[in-house]
């Protein structure tokens, strides 16, 4: 019964115009599922069994990306309720708490996913180091990875200011005061970051635009290059000699 229903759903002109191959019950159709799908074509059609074992990578890179997806979705939803102005930004936090249905849950998801992402990206880097996966030809992908870690931290940091509560305000004040210490251009750098000499409404709009537009765009582009290069270099790093059966 279920089988025929599934068949009826898949074997018709409309469905086949969207997904051009048949049910993936043969290796041919499974290959087609990978390389005719926009999202799946990031991955090779076949992968080494060793490379997809959980204990090899703990899926740290993938889970970081998963965090980013959750953050993007919850972030867009939060943007519907947020005005980057003083003191409206803080009022919006209170609205999320008392007016918007599931507002607290939404903000919690975004907040905890952000912290988790910083953690996961760091752990991903540590794992990659110990595996020696930065070895040629992957040197530059390691460098891109370090840049992606910086982007992640900056995203988290710019988001930290947006609730405009005491915690946000003073954490960002402490952080941006560090910029002052840069020799010669410190004060100018800080002014550029904040749009003023103190953390004020100009800083809020700068951090907001960086947090919602510039940094996510840069991060997604960087991740695309990062994944593309992993793919070009033969997928997840497996130490030579431990990849499969011993040769010869």
């Amino acid at each position, binding site marked *: 019964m279920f089988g025929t229903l599934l068949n009826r759903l898949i074997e018709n002109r409309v469905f086949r115009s969207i997904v051009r191959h048949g049910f*993936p019950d043969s290796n041919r159709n*499974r290959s087609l*599922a990978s390389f005719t799908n926009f999202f*799946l074509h990031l*991955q090779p*059609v*076949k*992968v*080494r*069994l*060793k490379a*997809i074992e959980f204990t090899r990578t703990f899926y740290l890179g*993938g889970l970081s990306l*998963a*965090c980013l997806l*959750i953050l993007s979705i919850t972030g867009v939803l939060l943007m519907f309720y947020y005005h980057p102005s003083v003191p409206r930004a*803080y009022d919006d*936090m209170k609205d999320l*708490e008392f007016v918007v249905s599931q507002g607290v*849950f939404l903000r*919690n*998801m975004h907040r*905890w*996913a952000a912290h*988790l992402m910083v953690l996961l990206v*760091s752990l991903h880097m540590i794992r990659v*180091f*110990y595996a020696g996966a*930065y*070895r*040629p030809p992957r*040197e530059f992908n*390691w*460098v891109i990875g*370090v840049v992606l870690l*910086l982007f992640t*931290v900056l995203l988290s*940091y710019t988001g930290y200011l947006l609730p*405009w*509560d*005491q*915690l946000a*305000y*003073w*954490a960002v004040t*402490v952080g941006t*005061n*560090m*910029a002052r*210490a*840069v*020799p010669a251009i410190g004060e100018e750098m800080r002014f550029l970051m904040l749009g003023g000499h103190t953390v004020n409404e100009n800083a809020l709009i700068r951090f907001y635009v960086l947090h919602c537009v510039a940094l996510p765009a840069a991060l997604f582009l960087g991740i695309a290059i990062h994944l593309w290069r992993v793919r070009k270099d*033969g*997928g997840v790093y*497996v130490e*030579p000699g431990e*990849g*499969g*059966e011993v*040769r010869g």
Partner: protein
Amino acid sequence: MAEFELERGADARKVPLRLLFVQADERPAVEEEDAQVVMSFPHLVLRELIAFLALLLFLVAISLLFDAPLEELANPDRTPNPAKAPWYFLGLQELLHYYPPVVAGVLLPGLIVGCLMIIPYFVVNLERAPLWASGRVTKVIAILLGSVGLVAVLACSGAHPLWPAIVPTILIALLMVLPGLLGTGTRTLAWIGSRSLPFWIFTWFLAVGLALTVVGIFFRGPGWTLTLPWRDGIYY
């Protein structure tokens, strides 16, 4: 210099004129030809889906149980004490307790990022030869002298002795020389002995970073004085 000429034609196989590319090296680097492989769809896709759902479930549970902090409206006239940065910066903020801002806030973070980026361009990081493969006596002396020097620098260079870095440095140095002193008789010693110098440097970096961050998160209170989280609670 050759004059630029626009090549055009209706036959894509002939225009533009093709050259033969000979790949010099064997990248993409899949050296094992007889490794066990499976189809990505469904084997990898399903694993990714399960991992994603597990993460989502975890985040939902955490979000239901714990609320994100929200304090009163920002007030530029009322500085909280302590004023702490987000947790991932507390290692650096802890350093600020010992060193002037130009060192803790500019020099060291720049150095950390720079060092991380150039890791793959050093042969020692690519070879990762076991530290205790040869030359025991000189290495034991070198490691001990090096770490004593480092501890001296960490103890004297800042406004206070940098304990969160000194303790991990001593521990890592002891672990490093253990196989040199005791040999590689047991399995644990053999494992430690087969680690490379880059392994130890990175592990030292992580241990110091972790110690500084943990102290910054849990053990610092008003005026950046030492507090005990089980007695005084956590300041954030």
